C-alpha cells in the first residue's frame, strides 16, 4: 500500500489506534501533523519530536509521500 508510514512511541502510541499505521500522502510534515491532530485530537496535549526516515527534524519538511514518520515523546522514568 502506498502512503506514509507512521510509527508512534511511548505515551503517543497510547493515543492512537495502532503503534504503526499507514497514512495518506501529505505535502509536508506540517500538513501531516494537522491531519493527525484532526483525526486524533488527543495528540494535541502531548509534546513529541518528529523524525522523517529515522532523522529528527526541527522544521516543516517536504514529503515525497512514502516516508516513515516517527512520533517520539520524551520518557522520564528511571
Amino acid at each position, binding site marked *: 500500500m502506498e502512503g506514509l508510514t507512521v510509527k508512534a*512511541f*511511548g505515551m503517543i502510541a497510547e493515543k492512537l489506534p495502532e503503534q504503526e499505521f499507514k497514512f495518506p500522502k501529505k505535502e509536508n510534515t506540517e500538513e501531516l501533523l494537522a491531519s493527525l491532530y484532526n483525526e486524533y485530537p488527543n495528540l494535541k*496535549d502531548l509534546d513529541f519530536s518528529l523524525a522523517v526516515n529515522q532523522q529528527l527534524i526541527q522544521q516543516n519538511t517536504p514529503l515525497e509521500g512514502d516516508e516513515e514518520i516517527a512520533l517520539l515523546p520524551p520518557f522520564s522514568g*528511571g
Partner: protein
Amino acid sequence: MSRFSRQTILPEFGQEGQEKLSRARVLVVGAGGLGCPVLLHLAAAGVGTIGIVDGDTISESNLNRQTLFGHQHTGRPKASTAAEVLKEKYPDLNFEVFSDFLNTNNALEIISSFDVIVDGTDNFGTRYLVNDACVLLNKPLVMGAIYKYEGQLMIFNYGSVALNYRDVYPNPPSENQIPNCAETGVLGVLPGIIGTLQASEVLKILSGVGKVLSEKILFFNLKNSSFYEVGIQPNTKGRENLPESEMDFKDRNYNINCGIAERINWETALDWALNMTNSILVDIRETGEKPLFEKEYLSRIPMGDIRENPESLSAYENILLCCASGQRSSQLAKELKQQFPEKKIFSVEGGILNPASPLNSNEYDT
C-alpha cells in the same frame, strides 16, 4: 586467571583498556531502576571510582527492578546502601556517596570531578538539570530513560558534534503531560536492559573500544523486542534554552512536578498542624462556603486570596491545603509548588468530605 582476564584477553580491550577503566571516575545520578544495573556492571568491569547520587530511600515497591537491593535494605538510603553492597563485592574500588538529590547548588561541583556522567533519574526536572550542567562542564553524558515497556538511550557531549538533550527536546514537557512518576508501571527487566546498555556505552567511552552511540537516539520496545534508531542534529531553538553560564544555571528553577500534587492523609496533617510551628493547615474554600469551622489547627484563607497573594504563606515550611473534596487543594498545591519549590506543599487527601476528616459531619451539605 585474574578477575578481569576475560576482558583483558579481548585484543581491542587488553590490559590497556583495563587500566583506563581503573583510572576512570564515573558518576551515576540516580541509584534506581536504571542506576542499579549501571552500577553493577561498571563495578564488575573494574571502573576505579564510582560516584553515586541519590537522595531517596529504598522501598518495597522498588525491588522489582532495583536489583542491587533486597528486602533487608528497605527504608535505608539508596546511595550509601548501593555503595555498601558493591564495596562488599569489590573491596578495591572507590565509591563516593552523595545522599542528596542533585540541585542547582550542588550539581556543578559534584559533576565537575568526574569523567563520564550517567543519568538514570526518574523525572524531567533532574534530566534537564543534569543535561545543562554537563553542557556547561563539557562532560560526556550517557542518558537512559524508560516508559512502561519502552526505553531510550542517548549519549551527549561526545564526539565530533557535541549534542545535548535540548537538541532532541528543546524544553521540558508541560506538567499536565507528565504521569505520576511513582505510579507508572514498569516491568523490572526493562530498566535492566536500558541500564545495561548505558553501562556498555560508558565502558566503550572509557576504553575506546567500538563506536559510541553518539548523534543518535536508540529506542527499545520490550513488547516487540525491537530497536529503532533516530539521527539527531543541533537544534538552534534548544540551544537558546541552555543556561549561558554557571551563574545563570544556579539561578534556574528545574523543579517540574509530576502531574499530581503531593497528598497527605488527615492524621498526619492534623499532627503537623498541631505540633509543628512551621506548618499550617489551610481551609481554602471560598468565602461563603459552609459550614464554617473554628478549630485551633485550621486557618481559613480562600483559594482566590492565596492565588493573589501567595506570599502570605511564605513564613511556613509545610503548607497543607484542604478543600471540600481535595480537588481544588490539589490544583492549588501544584501552583504553590511552582512558587515555593523548596517548601513542602500537600493537598489533604479527600478533603473535608473524607470520612477520616475530623471536619466531616452531617452538617456538611453537598
